[in-house]
């Protein structure tokens, strides 16, 4: 394991985001790498100091009491004795909060404008990052299935449009399950397939991907391919070889 890899792996290990095998593998590396040992010690020191009691502000009792009272009155509607003026004030403050919130988030997004200049580059980075995170995680999926009839309903209510779910187990690409990832600030349903030891993420988009995102993007042995998927669009991320990936893309192309 190269140390560059470890700089990526170290925070995952430190934050408990690696599975057991990944942790063991990293610990083997750690035993021989002085640089990583020092970096880990620094992370631990910082965390130790941040977990000091003085860094966690506790909600004032008055606030807790107030929310509990509000909750109690929300539960028993007949007890809601707010007069019209209070309701109007509440509604007005809420409206202002929403309007201002919109402004604030617009500002926040503008603030992040520099991060978004290369929209397609950012999408590619998000896709690769989600895929690598899934590879390192305890489970690459949030809903486990070999049956598309349990995967599709899981997405309902979580994303605007549930993706078309097909299982290609017969062709050697069994459906593992699904999860939801963020790409930019959009929640994207992700179908996960397996081929041998390779994991294949299929990110499903209802809208076309930016034209500037090429049909094929490669990075560190991983590859993004874009394609049509039924009426929608998909980005496939995997480290399978070209021939196998070609077969898989062909299967996706046949989805109706």
């Amino acid at each position, binding site marked *: 394991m190269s140390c560059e890899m470890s700089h990526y792996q170290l925070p995952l290990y430190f934050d408990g985001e690696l599975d057991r095998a990944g942790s063991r593998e990293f610990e083997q590396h750690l035993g021989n790498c002085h640089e990583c040992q020092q970096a880990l010690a620094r*992370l631990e020191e910082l965390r130790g100091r941040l977990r000091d009691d003085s860094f966690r502000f506790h909600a004032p009792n*008055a606030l807790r009491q107030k929310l509990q009272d509000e909750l109690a009155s929300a539960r028993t509607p007949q007890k809601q004795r707010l007069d019209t003026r209070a309701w109007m004030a509440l509604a007005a403050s809420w409206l202002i909060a929403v309007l201002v919130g919109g402004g604030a988030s617009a500002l926040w997004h503008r603030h992040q404008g520099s991060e978004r200049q290369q929209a397609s580059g950012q999408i590619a980075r998000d896709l690769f990052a989600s895929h690598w995170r899934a590879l390192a995680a305890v489970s690459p999926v949030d809903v486990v299935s070999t049956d598309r009839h349990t995967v599709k309903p899981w997405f309902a209510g979580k994303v605007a449009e549930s993706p078309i779910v097909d299982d290609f187990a017969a062709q050697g690409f069994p459906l593992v399950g699904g999860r939801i990832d963020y790409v930019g*600030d959009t929640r994207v349903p992700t179908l996960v397939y397996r081929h041998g030891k390779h994991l294949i993420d299929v990110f499903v988009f209802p809208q076309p991907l930016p034209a500037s995102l090429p049909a094929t993007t490669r990075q560190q042995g991983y590859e993004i391919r874009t394609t049509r998927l039924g009426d929608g669009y998909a980005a496939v991320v995997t480290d399978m070889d070209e021939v196998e990936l070609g077969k898989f893309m062909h299967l996706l192309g046949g989805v109706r």
Partner: protein
Amino acid sequence: MASTNQQGVVGELAVAHLDAAYNLARWLLGNEADATDAVQDAFVRALRSAHTYAGDNAKAWWLAIVRNCCFSRLEVRRRDLRLVAIDQVAAEHGEDAAQRLLPRTEVDDVEYRAAAAQESAKLHHQLRRLPAEFREVLVLREIEELSYREIAEALGIPIGTVMSRLARGREKLAQALATNGDRHGART
């Protein structure tokens, strides 16, 4: 339309994670009065949008609302010119000028003095000074112990961005400490 039952479920989960909500608001807004108000706003909003809660991660869903209310308040504050970009002020007019702009309450001063008596005072100070985007991931990960996925959900950003902000936030904080309070060192 949120049913009373859904409101009850959502209200309970909000109260269950009240300390986490308050702590995030307190770190984002810098004082008790604003943090309390923001959490109250968030609670009203959570009850009203109870029907949109799809049963995902409850804590992340609730913290996302709290965070939006905090940024709403920051925006109001910015318009009031009580607070401009605090880092910019610090860079241009020095740390003391920036500190004077940070809203303070009596309680805050007491807390600050109490903290100042400890070795952690400097770190407290540096975390307050960190840009909000790094401060919030550090608070959620190191203090609230949320997973990457929960943070991504609460902030509405990709996990890759959570990881890169966390890495840069830790780096900035470590640098700030290493340079022994030198504000220019903290900003590179």
